């Protein structure tokens, strides 16, 4: 099975406190730690496991700047066979449609049975997979937390729905799936693994290589664009306990007692 996984380099929100810069034009990027988007990492692990079971290959692709190469390399260290970077200044400022347009151009150059994305990335939009599928006229499923290959034409999938329940469907290939966290346990990537793929060539393709009209992507074509970032004015907000850590412990115990928080 030929599998393509779309990945994005994002600030790691578990590692960083995100704050807005003074003009509101962006978040403070100075000290941010970047990594591969959490959901995408599960998607790559799933692709590798499928390939190891039924054969084929796993390609990871990212639309981004030169720094995104590091993320592609990390996913290749996990076990992806190939990496492709789609990078061009005209892609900047793309909305979900723009990113999907770029990915579609690359996908149409190959022949993939299965295209995976993460459920969502740092902007919480959850849009690229669904838009891409519709543009490619392929069937789509979101929030996928189980994949079972039936044969080279069909798979069985589980989708996460409310209350921890799972919706099972059968799907024809080729298709696009957006992967939910928890579908597997992504393998650890050590420094040695990264070193092994350090010199593997990762082709970089721009708009003209992909046959993309620059007017159809990027800021020019974006129908959704961010004006600014801000931190919403707090409503009531929590009462923050003050004092030394011992004093906070004392105060909290009093509160817990009065609210029935200690039985």
């Amino acid at each position, binding site marked *: 099975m030929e599998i393509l996984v779309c990945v994005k380099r994002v600030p790691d929100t578990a590692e960083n406190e995100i704050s807005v810069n003074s003009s509101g034009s962006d978040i403070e990027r100075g000290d941010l730690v970047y990594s591969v988007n959490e959901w995408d990492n599960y998607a790559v692990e799933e692709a590798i496991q499928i390939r190891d079971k039924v054969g084929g290959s796993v390609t990871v692709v990212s639309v981004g700047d030169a720094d995104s190469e590091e993320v592609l390399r990390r996913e290749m260290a996990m076990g992806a066979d190939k990496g492709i970077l789609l990078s061009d200044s005209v892609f900047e400022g793309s909305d979900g449609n723009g990113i999907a347009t770029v990915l579609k151009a690359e996908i149409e150059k190959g022949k993939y049975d299965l295209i995976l994305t993460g459920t969502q990335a740092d902007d919480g939009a959850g849009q690229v997979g669904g838009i891409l599928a*519709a543009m490619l006229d392929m069937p789509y499923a*979101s929030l996928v937390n189980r994949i079972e290959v039936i044969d080279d034409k069909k798979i069985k999938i589980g989708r996460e729905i409310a209350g*921890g329940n799972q919706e099972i469907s059968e799907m024809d290939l080729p298709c696009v799936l957006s992967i939910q966290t928890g579908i597997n346990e992504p393998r650890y990537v050590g420094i040695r693994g990264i070193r092994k793929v350090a010199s593997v060539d990762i082709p970089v393709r721009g708009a003209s290589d992909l046959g993309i009209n620059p007017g159809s992507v990027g800021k020019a074509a974006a129908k959704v664009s961010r004006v600014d970032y801000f931190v919403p004015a707090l409503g009531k907000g929590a009462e923050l306990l003050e004092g030394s850590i011992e004093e906070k412990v004392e105060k909290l115990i009093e509160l817990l007692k009065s609210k029935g928080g200690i039985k």
Partner: protein
Amino acid sequence: MALQIFAYILHKDGAVDDTALEMVAAAGKLDPAASLTAIVVGSKTDAVCNSLTSSYKEVWKIDNDALSYPNSEVIRGLLALVIPKGSVLLIAHEHFGMDLAPGLSVKLDGTYLPDAVAFDGIEGGKLKAVRQEFGGQVSAHVVCDISGGAVITIRAGAFRAAEAANAGGAVVDKTADALAGGLPGGARRFVEIVTAEVGDVDITKSEILVSVGRGICEQENIEIIRELAKAVGGDVSCSRPIVDAKWLEKSRQVGTSGQTVKPKVYMALGISGSFQHLGGIKGSPFMIAVNKNPKAPIFQVADIGVVEDLLEFVPMLTEKINELK
């Protein structure tokens, strides 16, 4: 011509989802001059449709036995046939909306705006809206060109539900139009629902929940949470990453894709406060948050906040409580 807004109604076992009334409010904020139509898809939906006529002037019904389970691949195809180009469709940003909406925007040649939490007016076909990014740590104003139509998902709970009014609406049967081309979406076939496993404790019944998130850092550290839960006589629950890592069972996960809990006291330890997590906490418990990041969104909703490293604070708290016993 005035903007036409459609609201896709989620319903289950004959009951309409809370977001049906929230979308009335959202549509009013989006454009008070717009016409508003509810769309109900399913089988045997008469009761659902009739219950909406007090809030919606018009209710479109697409009803067929083949639609008894909402398969978004099927429904997307039907909606693309009946929704006029240039209009705006609203739907809740949850598992069905996320499945249906992005692709539908492509089929309708419209703009996709995901997970809106507020609207700030329209100017020259451009809608100003508010979204959240980075797990809710910051918000963003976005401008969205809706002049050629749009599909917009709405965060549940973000728009205060409109009072049930007396719209005196009419139900219009659109089934024939929607099914004119047959049943689409055959490439994805619904098989069954596998219901969640029940765990050893039912956290939906707990009065005190000691809930742990990714801030716990290591699996071994879960022990300090168990000890605190024991000291206060509560149960251990958690956020999703803890379940994804297989450190606790799925039945202990609080949130939209886990359990809905309604304790008296909820302690959020190393939990950032994503909307999917908070969506599983009902009944306004007394909420205490311990987080080392003073800007964590959880502090916006908690009653009491403690800005500390939980690995240090929690064992101290447990020890002190045990001493007092």
